[in-house]
């Protein structure tokens, strides 16, 4: 570029400093075919592809969160509903729907480094862990392991999807592909930490319904989890240690409920006990709302 052109072009640009659109057009005309521009066009494509994928995953994660939350609400009704079996079946159906969403996430992540998009999907997975472990607890009164959760997240591709989603693969090829999504230990821990909040709520609800045994079971179970988290202590990531405080509060509420139950249980007749605790539950809920 000669110096004349250089300075002329420069002056023009200087004046055009504010109307950006104009400036952009002018420049693109100048050197849209240079090798630099060509490579930046490929960068554009690469970045867009990546961002689009990220956004799709965030959306899926949000869907997973919402459906998992609904499942948890449904499961809470089990304390007041005589038809426990029915609710469990319904929750299973809901969780299956959530797993279908997770399947889509897993599909997006085929061939990708999962950790690249981990931030997008982590909230959804935590909520899913919470829902699944809650259901598992109601069924078996024990804690679900990471392994068991991941076992349910192994998917097999069906033929119809093969045709719609994978135009490159041959539909006549009967080979079944499997792929899986693994919940990371940290996501699992955070999900379990949230579970304790649900268990606390369940404890208070069940006393409210005159169920005397569940609170004691729950407090024992919660204590085990609390011990576990104390064992991990501060070695885990920051989020885990943060949840430890909430966990402690939940445990204290349950332990206090058990205490009241033990001390005053003998004094108050059963049908009145329900009243005592339902006001207590209300108070706790209100506290939660405030905090």
């Amino acid at each position, binding site marked *: *570029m*000669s*110096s004349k052109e*250089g*300075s002329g072009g*420069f*002056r023009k*640009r*200087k004046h055009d400093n504010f109307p950006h659109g104009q400036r*952009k057009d002018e*420049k*693109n005309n*100048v*050197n849209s075919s240079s090798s*630099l*521009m060509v*490579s*930046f*066009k490929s*960068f*554009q*494509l*690469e*970045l*867009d*592809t*990546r*961002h689009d994928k990220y956004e799709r995953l965030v959306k899926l994660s949000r869907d997973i969160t919402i459906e998992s939350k609904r499942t948890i609400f449904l499961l809470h009704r089990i304390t007041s509903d005589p038809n426990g079996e029915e609710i469990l079946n319904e929750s299973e159906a809901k969780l299956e729907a959530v797993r279908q969403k997770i399947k889509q996430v897993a599909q997006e992540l*085929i*061939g*990708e*480094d*999962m*950790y*690249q998009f*981990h931030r997008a999907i982590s909230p959804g997975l935590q909520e899913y862990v919470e829902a699944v472990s809650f259901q598992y607890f109601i069924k078996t009164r*024990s*804690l679900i*392991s*990471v392994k068991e959760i991941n076992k349910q997240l192994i998917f097999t591709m069906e033929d119809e999807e093969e045709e719609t989603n*994978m*135009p*490159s*693969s041959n539909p006549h090829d009967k080979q079944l*592909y499997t792929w899986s999504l693994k919940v990371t*230990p*940290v996501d*699992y*821990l955070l999900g379990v930490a949230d579970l304790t909040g649900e268990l606390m709520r369940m404890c208070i609800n069940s006393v409210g319904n005159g169920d005397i045994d569940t609170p004691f079971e729950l407090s024992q*179970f919660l204590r*085990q*989890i609390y*011990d*576990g*988290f104390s*064992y*991990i202590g501060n*070695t*885990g*990531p920051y989020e885990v240690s943060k949840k430890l405080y909430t966990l402690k509060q939940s445990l204290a509420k349950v332990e206090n409920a058990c205490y009241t139950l033990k001390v005053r249980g003998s004094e108050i007749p059963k049908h009145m006990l329900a009243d005592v605790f339902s006001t207590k539950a209300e108070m706790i809920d209100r506290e939660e709302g405030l905090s």
Partner: protein
Amino acid sequence: MSVSEMFITLQGVLTADQDIREEIRKVVQTLEQTAREILTLLQGVHQGAGFQDIPKKCQKAREHFGTVRTQLASLKTKFPADQYYRFHEHWRFVLQRLVFLAAFVVYLETETLVTREAVTEILGSMILIHIATLVFTLVEADRERGFHLDIEDYLSGILTLASELSRLAVNSVTAGDYSRPLRISTFINELDSGFRLLNLKNDSLRKRYDGLKYDVKKIEEVVYDLSIRGLNKEAASDAGGEK
């Protein structure tokens, strides 16, 4: 499996994770040291006398990149190849710095923008280019995996180059070289229009990119000062005379 057993297993996983991170941190520290050495070396070009022996400085810097290559090779062995992004944060910064240094050397040598391929070559052949799977493939092996240069890190490094060059433009005028700022101006403007093509998200790269306009402005001011005094014509005729 009892609850406490489960937590003991989890604790084991977390500790293993921490150990890996500790190892990575150690290697990254040595990398940072080498990067600082290269930077100190290249900073010499800003000094008046430094303009003469740019080729020599580049040569020396390239020798240092040999150390970088061995250090990166050792970094690569510290974590599982398919978990690059799990530990990405640890070396992200130093890698961006190294991209900048490589880009700076290449610019000083040829006055062109270093390509992503060339950076990976300078930093060591073990860095595989990360190719976006635009064509959907099911086989994981189709994609090159392992220690690669993330596109955002590459672009960040390039943006650092832009601000370094705006400084070089100022200093080359001080050293009496009036033609270099003009060439830098052309280069930065092209870079700027390249970045305009990208749809950046509101992330760190976007923030870095927002700084580019100040570099452009700075160089434009230098060129303006030169042209208003006719110094750029002098430079052009000088350059013509040399040829």
